[in-house]
Every structure is written in structure tokens, then in C-alpha cells.
């Protein structure tokens, strides 16, 4: 039966060549994040040789860890066509709870840390409940949750910075093996873990289905609400781990811990190709987005761009990445 649309035999060589150059351009645009990343590394390196040093590479990896954990967390609700703006605030609040469990309630640091991560996970779960069972709009629900958590952190700390963290607590943020910091290792584990979850498991497949078409997913026998609640819970958990890592690395918890990550944590997965409309994206993309943003931040600092210009130039570089990606979607998919 050959009743479908006829595919043109590519008789003229011109058509073949055109298709070839088109697919080459498509490939470039498809991998624009990575190409842009390499280009920026080269450019920054040319400006300042220090950029290529092992020290700096280690610095970038450490810097990328917290943003990466948070970017992964933000990517999850995006995959099911929802959003969670409260994750960076959750990071700050939960780490403060964990630290206070140690300093004020006299618990050892490890259970304290677990309480912090537990609180973060529960907040994620609660967000999921509100969005599915109460049908609250995720943008507004998590925005209000963000404001609540930021306020709660301020109230907890009374505006002061928590610094009396135990040696055990800060160990992970400071420890090195053979001169290499171990913190990025946690990010790699999370990246691989989430990657396996999304691509190799029944749950992951359901996540993409729900993001692609929730109504059809329901008809296909998927419990859409459960999938979303799980996703929010997992995002909360990752934010909790990120909170622990940030506090451990900085050896301090400020009264607005985490807030500065908000926009970058949202930008990273989107730059990495996670669709805000759900159902599209993968962890490799998130990694690319995270590394790109981190390289921009670190690079601008290293080549001594006056701090007044850092924000503007960094923003412009992100804009270019997003614009090229939009062009790719417009013409190549």
C-alpha cells in the first residue's frame, strides 16, 4: 500500500547539497549551547590565561554544583508543564532549618541536615498537592510559596547570618581528594540519577507523557496527579540537597540564602532545551545550560569586567543563547 505522500527522490544533486548544508546548520543550532560554551571558554581564556588553569576549572565545577542541583530541580516541574519558583527560597529556608536543628536544638549535624532536606522535600510535596488536588496555578502558588519561605528565612535568622555550622556539616563543601573538590561529584551523581530516572524508568516515561499531553495521559491510564506530586517532591528534595551543599560550601547561611539563584536556576534548564510547555528536555541539556551560565559568571569576573557591567554583559550572552535556540525551533523543528 503506497497511498501516503510521495517522498521526492532526490534526483538533482543541488537538492542533496542543500539538504546537507541545512542539516549541518541544524546540527550547529541543535548543539548551540555546547558550541557557545566552548567559544566562551576560548574567548575568556584568550583574555586571561588564568581561565585555563586547573584551579579555575575546579572553581567553575564547584560554582556549577549548587546551580546545577537547583537547575535540575527546576527542570522537573517544567517537564510536566508546570513550574516551581519556590525552589531557591526552599533551598535557603530548609538549610536554615537544618542548621538550627544542630545549633539550637542540639542535634548532631547529620540528623540536622536530614531534617533540613526532609523539610525541603515536604515543601515540594505540599506544592505538588496544592497544584494537583486544589488545582492552584503553579506559577502563582509557587510564587506565593517563594515569598512565604523567603519571609520565613528572614524571620528565622532575624536578619543575621548563621555561621556556627559544625565541622561535619561543612566538610562536604570543603573536602578535596587529591586536590579536587568532591562537591561537584554530588552534582554528577544527581545528574546521572535523574537522567536514569527520566530515560530508563516507567516513571520517567510517564513524566514526558504528562508533560506532552496530560489529558491523553490520563486516558492512557496514567495517574497524572501522582506523577506531578512525585515530580514536585523530587524537586523539593534536590533543592534541599542544594541547600545543604550551598551552606556547607559557604560555611554560612545568610538571611536571603538562595534568592540570588532564582533567575539563573530557571534560565539554565530553559537554555539547555527544557521546554516551558512540558514534555521536552533532558539532563544533558540542563548540564549545558548550567555550565554556560557558570562560565559566563566566572569568566566575566576573571577578565575583570568592571562589576557595573557584569550583569548587563552576562544577560546579553544568555540572550544570544536563547535567541539562537528560538531560531532553531522556528526553522528546524
Amino acid at each position, binding site marked *: 500500500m503506497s497511498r501516503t505522500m510521495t517522498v521526492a527522490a532526490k534526483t538533482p544533486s543541488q537538492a542533496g547539497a542543500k539538504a546537507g548544508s541545512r542539516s549541518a546548520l541544524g546540527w550547529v543550532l541543535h548543539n548551540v549551547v555546547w558550541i557557545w560554551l566552548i567559544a566562551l571558554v576560548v574567548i575568556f581564556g584568550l583574555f586571561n590565561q588564568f581561565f585555563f588553569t586547573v584551579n579555575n576549572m575546579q572553581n567553575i565545577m564547584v560554582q556549577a554544583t549548587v546551580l546545577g542541583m537547583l537547575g535540575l530541580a527546576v527542570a522537573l516541574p517544567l517537564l510536566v508543564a508546570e513550574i516551581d519558583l519556590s525552589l531557591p527560597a526552599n533551598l535557603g529556608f530548609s538549610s536554615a532549618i537544618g542548621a538550627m536543628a544542630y545549633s539550637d536544638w542540639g542535634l548532631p549535624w547529620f540528623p540536622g541536615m536530614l531534617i533540613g532536606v526532609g523539610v525541603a522535600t515536604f515543601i515540594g510535596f505540599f506544592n505538588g498537592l496544592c497544584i494537583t488536588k486544589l488545582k492552584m496555578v503553579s506559577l502563582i502558588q509557587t510564587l506565593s510559596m517563594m515569598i512565604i519561605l523567603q519571609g520565613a528565612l528572614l524571620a528565622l535568622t532575624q536578619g543575621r547570618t548563621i555561621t556556627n555550622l559544625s565541622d561535619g556539616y561543612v566538610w562536604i563543601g570543603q573536602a578535596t581528594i587529591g586536590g579536587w573538590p568532591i562537591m561537584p561529584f554530588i552534582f554528577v551523581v544527581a545528574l546521572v540519577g535523574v537522567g536514569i530516572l527520566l530515560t530508563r524508568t516507567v516513571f520517567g516515561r510517564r513524566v514526558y*507523557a504528562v508533560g506532552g499531553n496530560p489529558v491523553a495521559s490520563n486516558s492512557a491510564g496514567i495517574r497524572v496527579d501522582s506523577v506531578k506530586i512525585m515530580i514536585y517532591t523530587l524537586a523539593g528534595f534536590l533543592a534541599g540537597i542544594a541547600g545543604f551543599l550551598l551552606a556547607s560550601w559557604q560555611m554560612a547561611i545568610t538571611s536571603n540564602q538562595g534568592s540570588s539563584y532564582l533567575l539563573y536556576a530557571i534560565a539554565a534548564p530553559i537554555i539547555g532545551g527544557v521546554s516551558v510547555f512540558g514534555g521536552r528536555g533532558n539532563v544533558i541539556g540542563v548540564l549545558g545550560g548550567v555550565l554556560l551560565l557558570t562560565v559566563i559568571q566566572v569568566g566575566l569576573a576573571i577578565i575583570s569586567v568592571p562589576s557595573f557591567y557584569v550583569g548587563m554583559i552576562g544577560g546579553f550572552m544568555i540572550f544570544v543563547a536563547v535567541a539562537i535556540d528560538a531560531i532553531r525551533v522556528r526553522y528546524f523543528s
Partner: protein
Amino acid sequence: MTVPMTAGSQAAGDYVLKVEKLGKVYGGAIALRDVSLAIRRGTIHGLLGENGAGKSTLVGLISGQRQPSSGTIYLNDVPLAHSDVQKMEEAGVFLVTQEPMIIDHLSAAENLMLGIWPRRFGFVNWRKLRADAARMLAGTGIDGAMRAGALDAVARRKLNILRAMFSGGKVIILDEPTAALTVEDRKQLFDFMRRLKADGVTFIFISHYNDEILDICDAVSVLRDGALAGGSEDVGSLTSAQLSELVLGRGLVLFQRERRSFATDTPAVELRDIVGPSVRVPALDLRPGEVVGFTGLPGAGAKELARCIFGLTPVESGTIRFADGSATQDLPTSPRDAFASGIAFLSDDRRRDGAIGQMSIGANISLSSLTSVARSGFLSKEAELALSQRYFDAMGIKAPSAEVAVDTLSGGNQQKVCLGRVLATEPRVLILDEPTRGIDVGVKQDVLRIVDELSRTGVAVIIVSTDTDEITRAVDRVCIFENGTIARELTGSEITNDRLRGLEPS
């Protein structure tokens, strides 16, 4: 029998629209190849063809949504250079899409004049708007003050056609305007079109249904594989079989199930005391291997009961008992429960709740049976591939491979993917809601054949359909719904098109 389209036989002025050697290439695929046709002023010109035959591409070019790769479009014998939707609309060519473009919260009158609201001192002149609208709507049965969202399907279609006319439409292209309309609605719409035709409006009418084309069109053009397969300026001289042959390029063997009587068989499924929103069915038995048709007017309960059985609509009460000796249980409360107890359902609206467009064919097929191809939550690549390949082949899905995204398939093939997905769950009861709506006559036979074969394996099948032809061809027994309950049943030789049609109010 085929009368090739020749534009020269009459005075040129007779033709409002002509296209010459129109071609369109997407990427490497030829969507349309050297299509020439001429459309006489004040006629209804049918455009027929399978899914993917190039109908949408052709009207897309004519309406200015897309640019032709080659060829020329003439409007009133004037060749049109590069055009766009706005230019074509100014010239009087309007495309009315399948999904009525209507803003629900505005009134019918406001929708009618969308974009051309009369103004006065920069403000909307409401009085003039209402007066103009009332004049246009006179005799259509539509109240201009009514909220558009409250209008029924046929009124919405009419509103769209009127809007096109009111904006100066001389040539109105209707893309499958009868989809989702009942027999009565269809009749109303056709009367309306005939009236407008008498006023000099020209229609291009796209349809999958031969009987519609024969009923309303003056002339017809048939597309196949992106090229003009034939046509006629005198539709009256054509038969339905001739049209089908033109569409398919071969004689079409219409599927006909050999009806059996199952009356004495032990039921595979006993449904009892179902009370749900607008459904009340005390008892219904399904026998293994039986194909039961549910039909009736919209809202009469056929579709509603099907959705209750699958757990998509919550019920007040209702039980189900399977013949395997298991206990009587409540109806499933969710699709997931339904699948778990062996009930599968295929929705009538595959865009809304059928396939996941951006996922691959394979991933769609396995979506409802993921646990069967996984071990402790981890998918087995081989098992999944085997499952999806099996149904990809069995359904005869036309695509390069099962890796292709469902988005890129034609409607009929998307429907086969959805069918493959529900069959992959190996159901005991299969419920199909309008399984062949909006798919072409060739794929329709494929779908009915697949269902027939499945029933031979002992699966009980329910087909919900308002297409009487489909019912007569595919089922052993028909349940006719009225007021939320089964009013009558027909079996065996009682099932005829006429008898089913006669039950529709005329």
C-alpha cells in the same frame, strides 16, 4: 468515467478561481504536484481525497497560508503573485477551518464582526454592530446577543461561514465542516450553504464522505498522492463507488462483518445498575467476541455510558462482573483502574486525549502497558521495542519507523497508533468512541478489519458511533440510546442503514 478538468470549455469569466500547475514541496517531500483545477462561480466544489492526499496543502496555498513552490493561482482570471492570508481575504477568499475560530466569551454578534467592529469616534459603535449582526443572522436561528460559547456546533460553523461572508467572502473554503455534526445538523448546514450559493457565494467543500459530496456538490475534484486524480463538473453522473475508486486509485472493498448471534452465549461482562450523569442503564451484557454498537443522538447516553464504563466519568452507582468467576465489583473510577481490569478505551478526540504528539510512535504504543515491559520500574528496551514493533506492524501504520514522532503522521495513522496503544494492553473489553471519525475511507476499512479480527480472539467490543454506515458494517448488535438509556436493540438482519437513519428525527 473520469472527466479531466479542462478550464477552456466555458467562457473564462465563469470561473472565479483557477489554479494552474500548482506545486508544493516540503523539505524533500512533494506535497502537491502540478494540480490544475477551475472553480465555477456560484457553485459548491467538492475536494475529496485520503488523509495526506494534499487537500489541506491545496487549500493552504489557495487561502494564502502557504506559498506555492510552483504554479499560479488566478482569481477572476487575474494571476496572483506572492500572496498572504490578508491579501486573499481582501480579495474575497476565506478559509473556514475545522475548529471554528470563535471567542467563547464574546457574543455571537461580536464574533460575527470580529476585527471589523464598526467604530464611531474611535469607540465601538455597538448599536450599528448589533443592527448589522441582526440583519446577517436573520433566518439562521442564531441570536446575536447569545454568548458564542453557548452556541451548538452547527451554529458555530454557520457563524464562521457568515463571518467570512460578512468580511466580503466570495469564495469560502470549508475544511471538513461536518466533522462532529449530527445528521440533522448536517442537513441544516447544507440547506444554509445552498441558500448562500443561490446568493452567488462559491464554496470549496472538503469532506471524507462520498454521500456528502454527492448530496451537496456541483463539481468535484479528487486528489491522490498530491496530484489531481480526476474530477467531474457533473457530480450527478457519479456514483459513490466511482468516487471511492478515484480516491483510492483502485476498487475499494468495503468491509462487512459477518454478523453472528451471541444471544445464548454466556456473557463475558455483565454491567448492572449504572447511574451516572445523564446515563441510567439497568443492565447490559457483553458476550465474548461480540461487537456491540452504541448509537443515538448526541447526549442520548451512548458516549456517556462508554465513558462511565472506562472510569472517565464518575458514576453514582454501577457494577461490573467478568465471566472469569471474579466477584462483582464497582465500575472503575479511573482509566488506570479500567486498564487494570482489562477495559480499554479509545477516545473520539485523538488530538485532545488520544496520542502524545511529540512522543514517538513506539512510546505511544507502549504507554498504556509500560509495566508489562518493565522490571521493578525500569524499562526493558528490548521488551518495549518488541511490543511497539508488533503493534506498529499489526496496525499497518505508514511511517518510516516506530521512532517517528506521532505529530508528523496523518490523522488516520495517528488513530492507528492510538488503537495500537489500547490493543497492546490486551483488553477483555474494548470500547471505541467514533473510531473512524475524520479518517479516510481506506484507513477506515483497515480499522474495522482490525476490530473484527480482534473480536475473533474473544474480546468483547463496543463501538460508539453516529455513523450509521459504520455501525451496519461493523457490529453484531446495536444499542440505540435515548434519554440516557438503551431504548432499543437491533440484531442480525434488523441492522440496516435505513432503520438506523429512520430513528433519527427528520
